[in-house]
């Protein structure tokens, strides 16, 4: 089968830009000596250098989204190049700090975590605030390592525990949950129309024009009432197009009002308010930006009662979108048919990743190679559950931090990325099951 070619022999039109990583590589080499510990064998920056240092701290992608495109125009490429070389001294100091911390890590016999992952950001901050490390100083670096590896801030967790044994505080939260749950009422919405219009954002978006249309469609969809209405329907038996049990969002259908302290089950929408807050505290690197624990709990009580357990409308819409995508995914099913470009793309990718298992003698075609794997392989067949569990957790995090999902490309990348991480996780489990040592 061949794609309808225009004229395969025609001379390729010159590209209008440069691959991002190639630009970064070229600029990095101009820094010259002093950044070896941040570089690969060929002199380019390590992938972790790009991910942990350059993207967030040098290019500051949040402020300069133009720097994040896979293909950079000549102007942007030049700006990125300039930005990187403007930080050459800081990067050299950062490299020097990393060498110091790595040496001290070894001396102190620390084996916790990955050194690059843990120290790169810290080293850049040190380079900015203190410049080059002073030679021979071990007390300073050791204190930094203790801080990095030291216990997490347990203060907030303690505050949560204290609140959960305070009868007055608990009563208040319980009353709030009751009110908030009752406040969410069914309202008329064009659910069928919404689900139909969703297909437009799942279409092929390889051209600029298609991407523009997709964005317009998504911008309109996130303001519709249907995701809210669907979130209400899953609380009433027999009115939703899906069963929350099949989706893995609840242990029993329909969805019940969450409790303040007790989890109804470990399924996302069955979790208690306290457990959701605990998850937020676990995931947060930067607790100072979070409200104090009592406010956090009050906010979570409202959120837990909101449709899909999410307050923001665009995130509710993304969740519904994830359900529509998730129910079509089946990594081990050659006959699974997806109705849109986005879903068939994800499905094709999952199929390819499942093939890697077969090629590595970890699956017999699409079946477990050994009885030990049956459990995980069955789970892989019911892909939608772990898919939606992970998506929900991600969206919950975004809701807490008030990070929107209104950008269509971002939304598609999220739905695709969740599939990738669930697949990788599954495949590693399938592999682990065949480790003879793990009997």
């Amino acid at each position: 089968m061949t794609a309808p070619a225009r004229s395969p022999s025609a001379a390729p039109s010159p590209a209008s830009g440069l691959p991002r990583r190639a630009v970064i590589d070229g600029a990095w080499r101009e820094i010259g000596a002093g950044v070896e510990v941040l570089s690969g064998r060929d002199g380019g920056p390590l992938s972790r250098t790009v991910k942990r240092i350059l993207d967030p701290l040098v290019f500051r992608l949040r402020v300069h989204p133009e720097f994040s495109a896979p293909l950079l125009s000549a102007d942007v490429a030049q700006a990125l190049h300039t930005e990187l070389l403007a930080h050459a001294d800081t990067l050299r100091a950062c490299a020097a700090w990393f060498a110091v911390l790595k040496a001290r890590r070894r001396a102190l016999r620390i084996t916790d975590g990955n050194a690059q992952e843990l120290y790169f950001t810290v080293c850049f901050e040190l380079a900015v605030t203190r410049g080059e490390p002073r030679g021979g100083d071990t007390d300073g670096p050791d204190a930094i390592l203790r801080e990095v590896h030291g216990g997490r801030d347990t203060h907030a967790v303690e505050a949560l525990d204290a609140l959960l044994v305070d009868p007055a505080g608990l009563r208040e939260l319980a009353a709030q949950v009751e009110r908030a749950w009752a406040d969410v009422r069914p309202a008329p919405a064009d659910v069928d129309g919404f689900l139909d219009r969703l297909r437009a954002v799942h279409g092929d978006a390889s051209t600029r024009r298609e991407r523009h249309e997709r964005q317009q469609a998504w911008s309109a969809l996130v303001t519709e009432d249907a995701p809210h209405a669907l979130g209400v329907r899953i609380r009433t038996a027999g009115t939703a197009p899906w069963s929350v049990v099949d989706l893995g969002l609840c242990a029993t259908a329909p969805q019940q009002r969450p409790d303040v302290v007790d989890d109804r089950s470990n399924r996302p929408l069955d979790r208690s308010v306290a457990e959701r807050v605990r998850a937020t505290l676990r995931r947060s690197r930067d607790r100072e930006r979070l409200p104090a624990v009592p406010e956090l709990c009050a906010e979570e009580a409202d959120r837990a009662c909101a449709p899909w357990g999410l307050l923001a409308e665009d995130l509710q819409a993304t969740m519904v979108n994830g359900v529509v995508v998730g129910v079509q995914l089946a990594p081990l099913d050659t006959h699974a048919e997806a109705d849109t470009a986005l879903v068939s793309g994800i499905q094709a990718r999952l199929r390819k990743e499942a093939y890697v298992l077969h090629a590595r003698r970890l699956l017999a075609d699409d079946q477990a190679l050994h009885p030990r794997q049956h459990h995980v392989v069955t789970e892989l067949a019911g892909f939608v559950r772990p898919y939606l569990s992970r998506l929900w957790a991600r969206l919950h995090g975004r809701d807490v931090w008030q990070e929107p999902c209104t950008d269509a490309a971002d939304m598609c990348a999220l739905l695709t990325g969740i599939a990738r991480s669930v697949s990788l996780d599954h495949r590693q489990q399938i592999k682990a099951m065949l480790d003879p040592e793990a009997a």
Partner: protein
Amino acid sequence: MRLTVRQGLWTGGPDVDPPPLAAVLEVSGAVLEWTVDEPDSLPRITLTDLDAADWLWRLVGAEGHARLLEADSTTPLEVDLDHEALAPLRRLALGHWMSRWWPASARDGIVALDGAVLGAELAVLTAALEEYFAEDTFDSDVDGLLAGLAGLTSYTADPRVADLLDACAELGDLPDIGTTPTRWRADFALVAGGDPRLDPSAALASGTDSVSWTAVPPGVFDAAEDTVTWSVAMTGPAGEGLVARVRAALTDPAAGHPLSAGIRVALRSGDVAAAGELGADGDATLPLALTESAAWNHDWAATSIRVGVGEGETRETRDRVRRFVRTRLAAPPADAFVAEMLAADDDF
């Protein structure tokens, strides 16, 4: 190479023979495949995530990469591949292939590869190619490969292995080497393979069959042909039950294998069928729903025993793999793995 979009994914390169002949590598945003015994062929490339494949310019040049990022998915695209950049990727794929498909066999005299030594070399190769693993993939886990060094029990004095260990120590934290006695070893060298054939005198019928590699996990069975022996006989003091006894030769017949237990085994002989599971020693007893007289009248000539799951591959395919590794063992190529060279040394 011409790239076209198939099922939403950019794909290019020749068709690759199915496992066990496919050497694959999963890098960030792509799966690369080669037919294992065609060293000069181009890979089959499947781009599973174009944005995540930020290394593409290394293979197809910045121009080619940029054109691909802008391409319309309905039009094929021609790119030139940098063969030099491909070589280490192919080598890594081959190493992963060896760790799973190397046809170690006491009967065939194909020495097993030391899994820990091979893992160490794969860790070093993966780290050296880190630009292809910006995102976590199935093959990006260097720490996992290093953890396998805990099973390194032999060859520690070999200078080539010592060099590898030094290189590994640069990559991360190594486990305590050689202090954890493994309960099981894949690299069981040539154990005298006593013929475990069942006593044919008591049998109504007996024969042999082969294990399909793609149907069973690696490291469990001797990879030679005709290693499955079966016989049909009456059991019990009064000869009350007719059974088929099956025995599959394991890599280490003396120690058994933890993964052998539970592997499916099925007998088919015309309209007679029976199924069961192997034990840890590679043996199974399958009850046959047949009277003794019917068994005497049955033609057992066309009996086949299937061990494991799925259709499996042909004997010709397995022979191709054996030829491939024997050629390498006889004259290790310049880029042979240390584990291969150790196996080649042991061969003499």
